[in-house]
């Protein structure tokens, strides 16, 4: 396997605060890669760097061998990297169906085709029954699902999932895990996920990358990483004391 997405020594500072401090990681084609770490560790900033919301101050980001850092979000998406937002951003006044069709129209020849492709994804994510509803009227778990559906509709090679399990009940988490695994296997979709729900991380991830205060502190298989002393101290341990 070859690296599909490479982050090399990336640094991002916000007025003196180093949000992402020389992070390097490499995601292989077809992999499910999880990024974990406590709040404020720089996970979402890292996603925003990959997705083109920010340009890194230092370092490089490569996708399929070509540099993408500094490109605009719409270019990154067109290149094949889709993302979801941690704070969901549905198009509230449009129907669920139109929301997903807008994702699909990136690669569909016209809206009829886009709608047909969108409907297929809505079925996969158990949202088809709600396709006529306005996105603004959905419950939070459904909005999370819509966020994933819309990103999938752009037919990406890599999807960046920012805490899509948060707020889901365990059964809903398992359902989402099932859907993601199926898409990963059958459509060879590479998944990079920021996730706090360890149940999902353990079930899905091939490898886990741990960030703390903007820096990488560990990387490896889920079972190894969760035994790492620094990870337990900084993240898992801290969680246990809550």
């Amino acid at each position: 396997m070859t690296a599909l997405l490479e982050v090399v020594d990336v640094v991002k500072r916000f007025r003196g605060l180093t949000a992402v401090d020389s992070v390097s990681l490499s995601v292989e084609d077809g992999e499910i890669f999880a990024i974990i770490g406590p709040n404020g560790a720089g996970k979402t900033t890292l996603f925003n760097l990959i997705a083109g919301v920010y340009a890194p101050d230092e370092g490089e980001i490569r996708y399929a061998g070509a540099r993408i850092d500094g490109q605009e979000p719409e270019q990154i998406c067109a290149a094949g990297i889709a993302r979801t937002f941690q704070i969901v951003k549905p198009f509230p006044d449009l129907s669920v169906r139109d929301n997903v069709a807008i994702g699909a129209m990136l690669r569909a020849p016209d809206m009829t085709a886009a709608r047909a492709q969108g409907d297929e994804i809505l079925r996969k994510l158990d949202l088809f029954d709600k396709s006529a509803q306005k996105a603004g009227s959905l419950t939070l778990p459904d909005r999370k699902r819509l966020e994933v559906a819309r990103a999938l509709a752009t037919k990406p090679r890599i999807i960046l999932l920012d805490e899509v399990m948060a707020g889901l009940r365990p059964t809903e988490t398992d359902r989402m895990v099932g859907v993601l695994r199926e898409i990963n296997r059958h459509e060879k979709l590479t998944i990079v996920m920021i996730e706090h729900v360890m149940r999902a991380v353990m079930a899905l991830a091939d490898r886990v990358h741990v960030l703390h205060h903007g820096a990488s502190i560990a990387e490896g298989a889920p079972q190894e990483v969760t035994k790492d002393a620094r990870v337990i101290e900084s993240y898992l341990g801290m969680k246990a004391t809550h």
Partner: protein
Amino acid sequence: MKGALSFLTPRSTIALLVCCVALLIAPFIVDRYTLSIILLALLGTYLGQAWNILMGYCGLLSLGHALYLGLGAYASAILFVNYGVGPWLSVFVAMALAVGAAALLGWLGFRFRIEGVYFSLLTIAFAEIVRIGFDNWPFVGGAAGFFLPVNASLSHQWWNLRGGPLFFYYLALLMAAVSLVIAAVLRSSKLGYAFLAIREDPQAARALGVDINRTRFLALFISAAMTAVGGVYLAFWTNNLFPAQILETSKSIEIILAPIIGGLGTLMGPFVGAFLLVPLGSALTDGLRAIGLSAPGVKALVYGLILMAIIAATPNGIWPWLARKLGLEAREP
């Protein structure tokens, strides 16, 4: 094109046809005064559709559409009077000028990320600069205005937009119909959905691959060009142009009232709004005169109160409410 009509249910198709037929035969039924009110409403529909594409679909609030109206009107009038260029040719010059102005506005606004109300202020500033410029520019007649010749020998040159009330009535009807078709085609196209995505959430739109700069420019260009065509019509219909009328901010507000009252971002909103507001305006003038209330400002006061009542009753505009009442809601495509 076929997809553009997919929102029509059998019921709403019939309603639309009835409206079309009524408007087509209106000149043979109603008197001249009523016909002129319908004509104004049709023009209001047309301009409202043009503005609605920008605000209702793409979420960009322009409070300076008088700029494109004025540029279109003046360009065609000046080309006709000074250079003998007919309106069928000058209409393209009018559109090009409006698009040029829109390009400058858009470049400033989008390049420097001037969003929301600040963008609206920019649109007012552009319109005001041009109005003040025209007020003081002798070549365009300055504040004293610019006039087209009204003489009987020209009155049947329809190809030069010289004609009687009937000619202008059907031309306004045609323009209103075409604007509805343009809006419907856009609304069902990828471009139209890109407009909606930007209106709803620009950041999410970008993450889904929508090039928001390009899309916003297109919305602005379409809207400006359509408005300029309305300006050409106004020039040849009224035969006189004054910066203080056609380029005034109050003109911009007049354009936007119909789509807002009728229903922002809806296909029928501008039509419903214009056909309510124009007759309301003239009925108020007549009514207040009849009961002897002709003090200045009374009409504006009553008009404003009625607008407030309508907005309070139907905050999303009249059309969404009316469509529900009449069972004319759009069908899922």
